[in-house]
């Protein structure tokens, strides 16, 4: 859907009579892209479902104040990313002993996830991605799977393009090394 249609949706949202209808269209338009983005961060479907619902509730509460300084798609992605990272932060607080890291827990979840259909090499790749530092993991997923442009990513993550390129480069090198192990 083109940028103009987002403008149209926003003006429909601002009208009390068409608000719910407009919001329904917005959810249908962006839910899949946002869901997969969140799912790659939190791994399990149940957690991704919680995060995506919270994301859209936040969007509902804040959309009236959205002044279109950025594109709707960028704004939605930023909210979803923040929600997913906040979820991991809360999850991390549960582990007092540093040996049990969130990443280890996420790998365990991945292995037992009934909604993971990948083969052995896909599992190995996902494990390699989970071994990356949080920011590198985020950048790698956005670039490799979502095929986002650096300019777009820079707006969502509020980071410079140079820093993103460096993060992606390091991430790819680490994954290559992990894939070569055993």
């Amino acid at each position, binding site marked *: 859907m083109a940028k103009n249609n987002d403008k149209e949706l926003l003006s429909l949202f601002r009208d009390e009579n068409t608000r719910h209808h407009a919001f329904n269209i917005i959810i249908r338009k962006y839910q899949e892209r946002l869901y997969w983005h969140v799912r790659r961060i939190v791994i399990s*479907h149940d957690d991704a479902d919680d995060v995506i619902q919270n994301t*859209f*509730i936040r969007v509902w509460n804040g959309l009236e104040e959205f002044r279109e300084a950025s594109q709707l798609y960028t704004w939605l992605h930023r909210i979803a990313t923040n929600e997913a990272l906040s979820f991991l932060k809360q999850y991390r607080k549960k582990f007092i002993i540093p040996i049990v890291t969130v990443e280890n827990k996420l790998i365990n979840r991945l292995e037992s996830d009934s909604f*993971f259909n990948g083969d052995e*090499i*896909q599992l190995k790749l996902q494990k390699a991605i989970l071994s990356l530092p949080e920011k590198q993991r985020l950048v790698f997923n956005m670039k490799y799977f979502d095929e986002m442009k650096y300019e777009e990513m820079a707006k969502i993550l509020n980071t410079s393009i140079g820093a993103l390129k460096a993060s992606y*480069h390091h991430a790819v*090198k680490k994954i*290559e090394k992990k*894939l070569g192990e055993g």
Partner: protein
Amino acid sequence: MNESSNISPRLTKIKKVNPYSVPENYFDELPGRIQEAIHVQKETEPVKPFTFRFIRPQLAIAASIIIFAMLGYLGYKSIYSYKSSIELTSGEIAEYVEYYSSEIDEDLFIELLDENKLPKANFFDLSDEIITYLVDENIDYQSIIELL
């Protein structure tokens, strides 16, 4: 993808697929579930009555005044309760005076006593207890009185 192929030949060989899946009809049902969650949120939101919204600034000012008054009162109380808590026994005062006797200006001390109209000790009004003590110690208290 090109930029990663140079540094990661193994990654390039892996077919890029989404290995995750979702329950059946998940994306068909999600918008309805979100709308429902929003509806529940709206219903559970506490509705502020109009009068409360109208007088809220006034209430805030009143609360601030009360807090400041309480802080002032507590501060006053703590200072004065601290002062009154320093109560010395006569023994402690005597000890203090003895210890700092070299530094006390006797004239100034007496002057202060006069100014404060403190009751002066009546040296001639010896109690029975003191007289008994002097007798026991074989001290001629009559001569002491005469000397005074």
